[in-house]
């Protein structure tokens, strides 16, 4: 099986130093444990610390060189088409940089591949050419799917931890650099701001309530609550959302 792992130029969550993205290192581990040939793929101006991915169990890495601010999608789509991969793995969302988490979807659309999000485990499927994917759902739930390859799968942070770094393996690993396809990014109206952790919505924490009541409200909200609708009609779903918004006082 030929597996491509898409790698983005990440930054460390605290130090902001250039660093590989942890969830992509987890994708490398899933690829390594699935067996088959794994290839790293990065489109961007420089390879930087992505060289370290070779120490986490990735044998080879292709760097598609782009100018600063070029759109990586056409280069990656071209390389993926040319490489005839059975499986393409990507992180669920990157960290910092230009990675909004939309790229896997854009690529899947361009290449006409099915996409499955949030995998935590991969195994060979019951028939040749299929893949068994364990998908992470909210609140620790898991769903097992069988998909037909080729496909694009994004990896969830709840997947097994990355393989430990081996300095010598990174030193031995193979990096091939070739020019990517120059493509200007679509102009974006998006505004960029530093990340700010949002306070949690504390349900019904009425002002003036006692400390014990506020604590109860806070812990209850943290432990979920709410209502689970299974395959609701759009109408019912909308009604439930509106009811919830009214309940917490967002809508009058």
């Amino acid at each position, binding site marked *: 099986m030929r597996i491509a792992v898409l790698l983005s130029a990440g930054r460390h969550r605290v130090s902001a130093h250039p*660093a590989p993205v942890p969830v992509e290192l987890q994708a490398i581990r899933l690829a390594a444990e699935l067996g088959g040939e794994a290839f790293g793929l990065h489109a961007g101006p420089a390879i930087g610390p992505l060289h370290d991915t070779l120490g986490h169990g990735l044998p080879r890495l292709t760097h598609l060189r782009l100018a600063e601010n070029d759109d990586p999608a056409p280069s990656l789509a071209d390389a993926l088409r040319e490489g005839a991969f059975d499986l393409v793995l990507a992180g669920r969302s990157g960290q910092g940089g230009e990675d909004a988490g939309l790229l896997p979807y854009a690529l899947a659309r361009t290449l006409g591949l099915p996409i499955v999000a949030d995998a935590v485990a991969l195994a060979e499927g019951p028939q040749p050419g299929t893949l068994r994917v364990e998908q992470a759902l909210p609140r620790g739930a898991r769903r097992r799917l069988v998909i037909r390859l080729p496909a694009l799968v994004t990896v969830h942070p709840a997947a097994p931890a990355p393989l430990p770094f081996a300095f010598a393996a990174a030193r031995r690993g193979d990096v091939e650099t070739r020019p990517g396809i120059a493509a200007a990014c679509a102009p974006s109206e998006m505004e960029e701001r530093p990340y700010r952790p949002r306070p949690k919505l504390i349900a019904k924490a009425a002002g003036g309530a006692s400390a014990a009541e506020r604590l109860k409200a806070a812990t209850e909200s943290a432990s979920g609550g709410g209502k689970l609708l299974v395959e609701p009609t759009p109408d019912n779903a909308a009604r439930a959302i509106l009811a919830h918004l009214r309940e917490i006082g967002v809508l009058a």
Partner: protein
Amino acid sequence: MTNAAPGLSLVILALALMAAAMMVRRARLWRIGRPASVDWLAGLMALPKRYLVDVHHVVGRDPYAARMHALAAGGLLGGSVLALLALVPPLGGLRLVWAIVALAFAVAFIGGTMVGRRRLPVRPARLSGGRFQRLPFLLAAYSGGALLVALDATLGGILGPLAWAGLALAAAGGLGLVLQIDRGPMRHAFAGAAHLVAHPRPSRFEGQRATALLPLDLDSPRLGVATPADFAFNRLIGFDACIQCGRCEVACPAFAAGQPLNPKRLIQDLAASLQPGATNAAYAGSPYPHAREVAGVGGPERPIVGAGAMIHPDTLWSCTTCRACVEECPMMIEHVDAIVELRRFQTLELGATPPKAAAPLVEMRYADEPGGRPLKARTDFAAGLTLPLISATGKAEVLLWLGEGAYELRYGRTLRALVTLLQKAGVDFAVLGEEERDCGDLARRLGDEATFQRLTRENVATLARYAFGRILTADPHALHVLRNEYRPFGGDYEVVHHTAFLDELVAAGRLPVATLRDVSATYHDPCYLGRYNGETDAPRRLLDRLGLQRLEMERSGKRSMCCGGGGGAPVSDIEGDHRIPDLRMNQAAATGAAIVAVACPQCSAMLEGVTGERPAVHDIAELVLMAVETAASRQAEAVA
């Protein structure tokens, strides 16, 4: 004059030739090792001193063993050499010569009896059985038989057939001893001598601590040690020098805690794997506690570590690098160096670090800090205190290195006490603030030499920008690394531990202290301060200045027991029966002291983690601050 006496000389000659052949055969195996630069001449010249002074200093800690060894080895060698000399015609005829030979073998016989008395009827757990258990009989047979022959020659042949029986006994016993040169206890005699000559850390014999790990060339084709052939040849000699006395196993904290490490067994596994087609079957000492299943096979070019090899990885990761085994080893074997070299291969080549140890290594690579915490937050412990940054002025008399402990709430209290004391004494000090990266100790002990060297180079470059007299630190691990392990990377600093520095300040009268009456404390020596750097006096002197009642634990000073916090052991987290800090805390509680005085963030964290009824844990800085504040309040009372 019977004919038995020249017979003895001839038998000994034959045995000596056989022994030489056996030694050469074993020594040829050492040549598989990597080359190392050894000053043979200096080593040979220093051999008598290294043996008689340095080795016997360690052996003498067990006076019975020292006497036993002096008698057995001295008598055996002296008698054998003299009996060989008797082959020279005029000497062989002299009764006096034979009288001396008889005396020497009598001494050896007494030594051999002592060997037996130590092992029989019940063999202590730390001593090995198997071939080792046969040793007293062989010694007794050889020396007793030779004694009969020599006595007969001295007395003019009155023993008759008894002398011939003695000769037969001596020949049989001697043959047994010679056959033990290859794999048995007698190997230590010649390998030990060779080890003392070609020792990888010769400065240990010149009064230096010589405990710094040696840098690894990151461009070499194979990083660390995978097979016996990857060790330097003089390391291989060291493994062969082991006499399996088991002092290391008694001292090892991981062994005591039931983790799968026994330094003696480790060295034996390494020595065994030299042989082509090696197995570990001949070992007859205590096993690794809860030994993990391994194939137990090896060879010069075969891997040492792994379930299919000699040593299970969990054994390597159990080590706290406390050097207690090295300190106790009478043969001066360097166990910790071997473990770190094996770990380097596991980490750098295989990426086989224990899962929980991988995370701090990643954080150190991208955040310069094992917890992945912001470097700026390192000074958060000092909220409310003024902590001068060296970047503001560019210079300070004393640079305070905070270390990893600064992030921890408990240890922050210690650092606050230290900073307060420095301010009270008017010391011109400053910290690096967010320019301080991790010192790299953890990375290096976990075998990640690449990260250690990067952090070292960056710290050295940072320190080069500032002018300071000394580096002060409360973390012995940082102290050891900054003082001893940065030198090959261009970092040569005078580093002082806070206990020594506070001792200076109190002695100079810059910190007026009151006596803390009715307080009893026992001092727990940090391995990296006591054993690694030989600093055991200053902390005790300082405690005495505070006037508290100082009690000593059974294991203290350079022979102190580890808290379990070194060498990355807390992050490797190998399962055992007990926790090492619990064992140490029990020893502290046994003194009856109310306080365990510590001087290291690791010890502080490990010992504070002990649950239940126990003495309180205080860093010495906190005790000094207590005494200084008591002095101030007493003075205030006196004025009022």
